């Protein structure tokens, strides 16, 4: 088997006395679509933060493309092609929607993509069209609706031209049709060879999206494998439904 794109092994993180992640192992191969699920407070977001570099894990190693990235600040990781979206959208509120995308296009994408072939604004517009925000390019990002903010959040992550994109609950609170929109968007990334980790509570979306599902409960990974098998796993059922 080829080397994994992302290789998390033995990662542990605690806050004070609370152990949020307890030696978690987790792998993603290039172009793979992985669902990461688990009840609230199970450590999903902490894991994302450790991988993206906004939190530092105490033990364990995180390797991206074979390189140990544990000591790297977040901006360096995204420049290597490891992008994430935020659960609560964090737009650059004083900028237009288009300018929001220019930030990663200018700062992250060139680092691993080499010199630019098309002008930044054009590339940004292209991504906006792709996520369905093309007509809002000139609008101020602070005034967008919830769905559009989620789309912008994903678009900005895509603009970093990542090899791995972590989508952190991009669909929470959206209607069924809106969920489908975002799902189509994420599925489209497969064609570009982007691996995606989808963290989600909307099970319908996770099942439809994932080639593989990993389950975190109380900071431990209790299952990892084929979606159908994982959902049938008695331990997973117990964790979700209680005794």
């Amino acid at each position, binding site marked *: 088997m080829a080397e994994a794109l992302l290789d998390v092994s033995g990662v542990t993180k605690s806050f004070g006395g609370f152990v949020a992640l307890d030696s978690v192992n987790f792998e993603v191969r290039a172009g793979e679509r992985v669902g990461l699920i688990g009840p609230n407070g199970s450590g999903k977001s902490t894991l994302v933060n450790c991988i993206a570099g906004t939190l530092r894990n105490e033990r364990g190693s995180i390797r991206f493309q074979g390189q140990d990235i544990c000591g790297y600040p977040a901006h360096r990781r*995204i420049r290597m092609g490891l992008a994430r979206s935020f659960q609560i959208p964090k737009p650059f509120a004083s900028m237009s929607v288009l300018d929001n995308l220019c*930030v990663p296009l200018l700062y992250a994408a060139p680092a691993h993509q080499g010199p630019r072939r098309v002008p930044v604004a054009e590339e940004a517009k292209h991504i906006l069209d792709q996520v369905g925000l093309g007509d809002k390019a000139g609008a101020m990002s602070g005034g967008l609706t919830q769905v559009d903010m989620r789309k912008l959040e994903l678009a900005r992550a895509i603009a970093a031209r990542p090899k791995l994109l972590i989508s952190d609950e991009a669909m929470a609170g959206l209607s069924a049709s809106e969920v489908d929109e975002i799902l189509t968007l994420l599925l489209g990334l497969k064609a570009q060879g982007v691996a995606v980790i989808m963290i989600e509570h909307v099970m319908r979306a996770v099942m439809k999206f994932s080639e593989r599902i990993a389950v975190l409960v109380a900071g431990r990974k209790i299952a990892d494998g084929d979606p159908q098998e994982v959902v049938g796993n008695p331990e997973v059922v117990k964790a979700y439904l209680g005794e």
Partner: protein
Amino acid sequence: MSNKTFTVVALAIALALAAVTQLIPNEYFFTAAYTVLLFVILATAWNILGGYTGYVNFGSAAFFAIGAYTTVFLYNAFKAPLLVMIVAGTLTAGLAGLGLGYLTLRLRGVFFAIASLALAVVLYVFIVNWDYVGGARGAYVLQPREIPFGLPRYIHLIYSVQLVMAGLAIVVARAIEHSTIGRGLAAIRDDELAAECSGVPTLRLKIFSTMVSCALMGMAGTTFPYYLSYVEPSSAFSLSYAVYSIAMPLVGGMKSWIGPLIGAILLGSMQQLVQVMFSLGAWNLLIVGVLLVLFVTLAPNGIMGWVESWRRRKER
């Protein structure tokens, strides 16, 4: 405004202001204009960190005084030429900014703000106890008898130098604003975590903008000893510099280089007017303080904010 228009307009204004040295005989005009230009530099410099990056610097007076006291030191030590003093003062202030930024910009923004204020007091105490630069008594820096470029009086030279420096500050601020760095700074101001996660090296950019901003404030201070021929710590470290440098961008608008310029010209001219009318400095400071509070609460985007929303309404 395109680069071409900016260059043409800026050159025209600069030439007009330079020609003034030959046309206006009244020396008071230059004293007043010096102060306004000083304010332009301070406001523009402050805004590079405050407006573009979103970090409040309360230590404007400290960096201004670093510039002024570099001049005093070089005057006492070597009688160095003015240009050397300007360069040295700018660099020293920039280094101080770099140090302060390196120590505190890893922490939350408020710590930087408080530390900048603290730096002002530490430096003040340091200068008061440093006899070589005059200590608490202050130091005399005599204007040279020979005035270059055939200018009639020394104040004309100081005014012209200040004019060039103000122009430089604006050009630097504008260049940063329109560059990739400027976009990164704006991202930091809007959401630092999201900026970092978009690939912006936030710490490095913050330190950079602190350094540039502080260096320009130091530059503004280098001519100050020659302006009065005399410097003492409490005038060089006056808190009013800090208040003015914050108030002017807030009144003018902080998003672009033009805001601080407008704010500085408005508040600077107003200050001169009030000075003439009441000849009481405290009223000036009161007005600036009140304007600062009024604008920050009622018109947080300043005058340029009004202009922008008025433009947008017109477009519709």
